[in-house]
């Protein structure tokens, strides 16, 4: 039987053939009769009061559909967490490119010209552009203190450790904004009719987020909103919350015009107006014993949320919990906050806060090593978390993870020690310096803390009279392999061939709410529910006596046919139940932050060219423990893709800001890695399993975003002996860091034991 060979095997991607033949249908491939195109008129200033909107009399405005905030039938906000972001600004604008007015027309060329023919006058208000200005609170732009959210994590008594410390090591680290840069821009089509309400087809990750936002915006009940996910050309978090905005705009234009409306951004609009990774600043102050053990420390982690709260509180949460890395802290105080600035809101991006705080932690570990006088390897060894110890949130590590083993294996795979010795010799001459760096880290799978409990996900499995099975989930495919992996799990549970199980297109009138497709939760949490729901189908057929043990697909088919002939339909649902032993305190930020962690050690080898100031990565080893690998080819693809994106985060991708607006909003001058820029990315897995995931799977999608940046910058320091605190590290940034003034500053802080 096929049963034993479905999970853990690289079966063909479900929608793979459609993708390699060009048959796959993305939203921009869809055209509806009578369809108009929509466009957005946006603010051109960071903060101000809207005084007057005027329309160039040379344009035949009667031919256009025009929507302002006054046309909104429901609430003028994008429903998410705090509901503070307007769908269309009406009195004030709080960031550049904020939507103010919508236009639609059948002719895209005329539409473009019309957008340019609207002029808006403002009374400017003082803007806030940096985290420092925001926390000074001399100008308040959000709430009473410019702070969307803050957390405090406390473990042990950190105030007493400083006097015992042999060394106190300080450091400050920065990460920049990063554009998700999915190759398919954001896009939707909306249709309204009074009888059925609003239907939206779109490129998106979370159909039920859009559903919830449209209910509030359109003032329509649940059953009058339908959201359908089309094939989605990359997302990486960038299509988690933003689709609610663009879907809202298309829906408003369709309600006003009574016609289908398509809005598909071009690249410049997508880059300038939609979300990016939160820029961050992390400060570490760590008490270390003379034998290199962390006694305790203070960590301050701050992120720039942009103009509205959107998902910043949740991004901050993940960054907070990951701030201590995979190390044992006898005591720690972690203070974190998400601040408002007058830029477009920053949002979800693979890793979700963890790449930021882990960059700081892993740079800081190398700093600790230098101050204490141990190697980068040794200082990590002495501080790794071990089973039975607790994390910064006092979660007991129950997994049998052996980080020393993981480290040893990564060092061996990368030939770390031999290379390290060789580079020291070779670097004595020439302008091209080689270095090697490591990063050890962890990534929690699923929603943080009580998040999964609140989500309360529901999954369905349906069998047809022909014996074919459909998995019903709102979990979306956007490249990661959702369709394939969930069908593997379903087929395995039902002892059917992989080909007999398909996944329903996410459509809120067809699939239940299995939660958003985020947080590396799909394989682990939704997968487990698919397994239970599929088991439910089997149990139903067995209990009714239609199916015996060890059945063939033909017998399964006959049983389904007989069952459906009598009862009409065969469906089974499974709802998430929080494991009884997972405890989390939202107030104290204490407890079991995640049901499982994935663990990793990455090693980067770099060359720093002191003539061009360019850094290239020559070799990359990515070793991780992710529980059971359900599909080796897909899993490897998640890691290589994540590492590539993280190499971009470290070395290539820089958002250039001017008055709160991204000014390099083109692929021409915002550089992502091409096929000639990347090293061989060598991927290795360890499989410990996980009791909470389907077949022992954990999350995998975000993990590879966390480690590469610190491993690379650690390698740069190894190569040239200069401390770098900030990414992205483009040649001009390295040039700056190597100027005599910068080096002097560096030497001074070194003498003080601070970074």
């Amino acid at each position: 039987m096929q049963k034993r060979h479905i999970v853990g095997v690289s079966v063909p991607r479900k929608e793979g053939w459609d993708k390699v033949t060009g048959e796959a249908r993305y939203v921009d491939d869809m055209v509806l009769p009578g369809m108009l195109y929509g466009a957005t008129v946006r603010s051109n200033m960071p903060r101000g009061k809207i005084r007057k909107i005027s329309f160039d009399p040379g344009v035949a405005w009667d031919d256009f559909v025009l929507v302002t905030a006054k046309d909104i039938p429901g609430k003028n906000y994008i429903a998410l967490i705090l509901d503070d972001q307007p769908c269309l600004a009406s009195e004030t604008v709080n960031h550049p490119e904020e939507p103010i007015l919508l236009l639609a027309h059948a002719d895209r060329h005329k539409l473009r010209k019309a957008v340019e023919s609207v002029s808006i006058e403002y009374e400017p208000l003082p803007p806030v552009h940096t985290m420092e200005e925001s926390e000074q609170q001399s100008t308040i732009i959000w709430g009473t203190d410019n702070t969307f959210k803050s957390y405090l994590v406390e473990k042990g008594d950190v105030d007493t450790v400083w006097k015992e410390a042999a060394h106190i090591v300080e450091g400050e680290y920065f990460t920049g904004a990063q554009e998700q840069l999915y190759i398919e821009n954001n896009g939707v089509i909306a249709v309204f009719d009074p009888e059925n309400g609003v239907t939206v087809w779109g490129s998106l990750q979370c159909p039920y987020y859009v559903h919830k936002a449209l209910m509030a915006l359109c003032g329509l009940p649940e059953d009058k909103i339908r959201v359908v996910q089309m094939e989605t050309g990359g997302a990486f978090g960038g299509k988690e919350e933003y689709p609610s905005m663009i879907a809202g705009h298309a829906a408003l234009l369709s309600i006003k015009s009574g016609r289908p409306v398509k809005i598909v951004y071009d690249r410049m609009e997508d880059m300038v107006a939609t979300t990016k990774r939160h820029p961050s600043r992390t400060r570490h102050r760590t008490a270390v014993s003379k034998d290199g053990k962390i006694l305790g420390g203070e960590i301050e982690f701050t992120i720039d949320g942009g103009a509205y709260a959107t998902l910043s509180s949740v991004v901050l949460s993940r960054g907070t919990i990951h701030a201590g890395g995979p190390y044992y802290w006898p005591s720690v105080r972690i203070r974190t906050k998400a601040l408002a600035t007058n830029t477009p809101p920053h949002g979800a991006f693979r890793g979700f806060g963890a790449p930021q705080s882990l960059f700081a932690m892993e740079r800081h570990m190398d700093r600790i090593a230098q101050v204490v006088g141990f190697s980068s390897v040794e200082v990590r060894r002495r501080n790794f978390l071990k089973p039975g110890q607790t994390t910064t949130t006092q979660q007991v590590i129950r997994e049998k993870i052996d980080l020393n083993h993981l480290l040893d294996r990564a060092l061996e795979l990368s030939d770390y020690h031999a290379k390290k010795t060789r580079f020291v010799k070779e670097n004595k001459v020439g302008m091209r310096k080689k270095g090697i760096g490591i990063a050890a880290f962890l990534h929690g799978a699923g929603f943080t803390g009580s998040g999964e409990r609140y989500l309360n996900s529901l999954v369905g499995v349906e069998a047809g009279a022909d014996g074919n099975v459909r998995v019903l989930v709102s979990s979306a495919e956007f490249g990661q392999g959702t369709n394939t992996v969930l069908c593997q799990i379903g087929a395995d549970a039902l002892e059917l061939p992989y080909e007999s199980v398909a996944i329903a297109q996410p459509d809120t009138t067809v699939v239940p709410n299995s939660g958003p497709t985020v947080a590396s939760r799909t394989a682990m949490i939704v997968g487990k529910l698919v397994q239970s729901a599929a088991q439910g189908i089997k149990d139903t057929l067995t209990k009714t006596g239609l199916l015996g043990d060890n059945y063939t697909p033909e017998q399964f088919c006959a049983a389904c046919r007989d069952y459906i002939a009598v009862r009409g339909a065969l469906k089974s649902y499974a709802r998430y139940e929080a494991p009884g032993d997972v405890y989390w305190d939202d107030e104290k930020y204490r407890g079991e932050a995640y049901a499982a962690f994935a663990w990793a050690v990455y090693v980067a080898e770099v060359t720093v060219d002191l003539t061009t100031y360019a850094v290239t990565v020559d070799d990359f080893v990515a070793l991780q423990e992710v529980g059971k690998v359900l599909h080796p080819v897909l899993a490897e693809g998640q890691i290589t893709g994540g590492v590539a994106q993280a190499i971009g985060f470290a070395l290539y991708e820089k958002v250039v800001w001017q008055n709160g607006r991204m000014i390099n909003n083109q692929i021409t001058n915002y550089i992502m890695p091409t096929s000639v820029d990347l090293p061989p990315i060598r991927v290795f897995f360890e499989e410990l399993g996980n009791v909470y995931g389907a077949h022992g799977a954990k999350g995998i999608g975000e993990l590879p975003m966390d480690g590469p940046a610190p491993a690379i910058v650690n390698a740069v320091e190894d190569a040239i002996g200069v401390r770098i605190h900030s990414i992205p590290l483009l040649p001009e940034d390295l040039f700056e860091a190597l100027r005599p003034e910068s080096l002097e500053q560096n030497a001074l802080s070194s003498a003080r034991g601070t970074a």
Partner: protein
Amino acid sequence: MNSLPGMGAKCEFLIAVNGETKMVLAHPMERLLDVLRNQLRLTGTKEGCGEGECGSCSVLLDGMLVNSCLVPVAQASGASIVTIEGISVHVLMSPLQEAFLECGGAQCGICTPGMILAAVHLLEKKPEPALADIREGLAGNLCRCTGYMQIFEAVAKAARRRVAK
């Protein structure tokens, strides 16, 4: 209605697309990409950036790999175009498509049609490419999902199979 500023009046153009001659009525400066997608409904060719950086709109124009977002339709007049839908007329496509599937060369799929056309073009010039040739040959096509490793593997595999035949 037939003329737009800077685009000139609509003209008739003959273009051979995937082996079939098509008459299109378009402004001379209209992008080949839009003519393929909107008039001929060949939506396998994708728009990623609209400025010739990402390669998602790659097609073959008289055997040359071009970004169809940068080609005015007038320039394609009389030319022979191959798009991803041209699978049946192009012997290289199928082994490449199979290899992309097996190796995980397609994730979200949006860059895939352009990437496959770039690979077709490469294998025509270099039937037995070294890794460096593959990297160079695909350098005009951005992929944000895979980190390219599995795409390199797919192209190498397709080349090996083709040579073995």
